[in-house]
């Protein structure tokens, strides 16, 4: 992809990734074939802020984990009432990072 498109992508999507992943994302995009650029631009990333709101409201039922695509952990949270609220409170702090990790995984799957 040419650098203008890459810059555009980085501007629009930098909030969906961890800061330390941005360099890697940029490198991958620069080396990416043009035929894949349309796939990359149509990826739907999950917003970490939305995930945090969902976690605050529905964390006890595991809805935050379902939202970011961690279905297995969502089921575990649902069956244990948010890990007896302990896991729910831990997830208030972890969910934004977990969302960014999931976005990065999705990006990598689309690139390879």
């Amino acid at each position, binding site marked *: 992809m040419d650098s203008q498109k890459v810059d555009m992508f980085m501007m629009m999507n930098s909030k969906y990734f961890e800061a330390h992943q941005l360099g890697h994302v940029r490198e991958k995009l620069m080396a990416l074939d043009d035929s894949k650029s349309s796939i990359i631009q149509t990826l739907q990333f999950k917003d970490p802020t939305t995930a945090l709101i969902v976690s605050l409201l529905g964390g006890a039922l595991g809805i935050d984990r379902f939202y970011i695509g*961690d279905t297995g952990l969502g089921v575990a949270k*649902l069956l244990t*009432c948010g890990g*007896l609220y302990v896991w729910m409170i831990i997830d208030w702090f972890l969910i934004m990072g977990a969302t960014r990790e999931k976005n990065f995984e999705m990006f990598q799957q689309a690139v390879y």
Partner: protein
Amino acid sequence: MTRNKLYSIIGLACASGFLWLAAASFFPHVSGFGICPFKHATGIPCPSCGVTRAVKLLLEGDLWHSLLMNPFGIIVASLMVVLPFWCVIDLIRSRATLLNIYQKSESTLRRPWIASVLAVLVVANWIWGISKGL
């Protein structure tokens, strides 16, 4: 999700589950008091209220009353029995069969019609639990 991360989460969850079960068996008044913060805050039971009682009934061999208490109890109990052994066997043979099955079942659960059927079941179970007054 890497293999070791998943297996440590499973180990931690099962260990705390067995600890909680032991605490509920040796100090019945603690679990009888009702630990669920959701129930304390809102006055209605959460979807997984009654799971401890269901697992305890299952341990006493009373499958029918365990089902009537909360059907989630049987799911939780079987996961708690099967998953630790599966993890240990996987670690000994240095394979990742559980991780593969986990990822496959995740993508199965994400298919819209399966997800919606299960969500309806969970909500129905919740309504049943509220009407039973768990």
